[in-house]
């Protein structure tokens, strides 16, 4: 958090940016999850890719 900026403007742009990014990744995770659920079982290579992307988002969100 940039304290001087917060004192001047009353806004914390860095944390709002972080929250925005979290929300965007959460929405992306939701859509990846839906896609994973809908992909036919025989398209295993697509499922594997989606799972990998979901894992990356999980790592980002949960740390």
């Amino acid at each position, binding site marked *: 958090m940039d304290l001087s900026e917060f004192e001047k403007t009353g806004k914390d742009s860095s944390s709002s940016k972080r929250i925005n990014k979290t929300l*965007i*990744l959460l929405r992306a995770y939701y859509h990846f999850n839906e896609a994973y659920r809908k992909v036919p079982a025989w398209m295993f290579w697509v499922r594997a890719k989606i799972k990998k992307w979901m894992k990356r988002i999980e790592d980002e969100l949960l740390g």
Partner: protein
Amino acid sequence: MSYLADLREARNLIALANRMGWTDISVKEIDKILNDRRHKVFGEVGSMFRKDLLATAITLGIVDRALHPKTRATFEFYGMLVSLILAYADKIPLLKSISSLAGFAATHRLTLQTAALTLFILWFLDLLFGEGSYGFDLLSAIGQKYGFALSSEGIVGVFKQLASDIKSAVKGKEKKEESYATVSVPTPTEEEKVKEEEYPIIKVPESL
């Protein structure tokens, strides 16, 4: 929403995240999957062969074939009309007000469309090759010219005829095998018979 639509949505969000500085997943990776031709072709075929739709089509086909040829065309035509009306019940002005019907149409539209399409195909085939149709007359005329006969039951009759032909062929073989097993009595050949007819043997009485 299909899985491709969901992937597209996720791709747009990831592109936004990339612009904000998060680059763990690149958009190119997702684009590779989205633009893969295999998905377009197999995805469509896969959705076409959804289990419930396939089961509906097979059931309708079996029921239809089990019917008498006279009632078949009626069943197919009216079945097609009814399933089409039911499929779009939530868009037809008078039926729109019946909420249960509209709800049924909205939830089962794809199945109803499949039923209508199946019945239409069967009806069309019956029109083309069914008993008394132009197609059937044409085929039987060709058959007469080139020496094969069609059954009076249309295209189904052809298969029935084929099955009975195979059956009779198998039975004929069995009979032949049986006849080989029995003791055969030699009979005068045709040549011998002809010889007898041409030169009758005159038997001379013993007294002479």
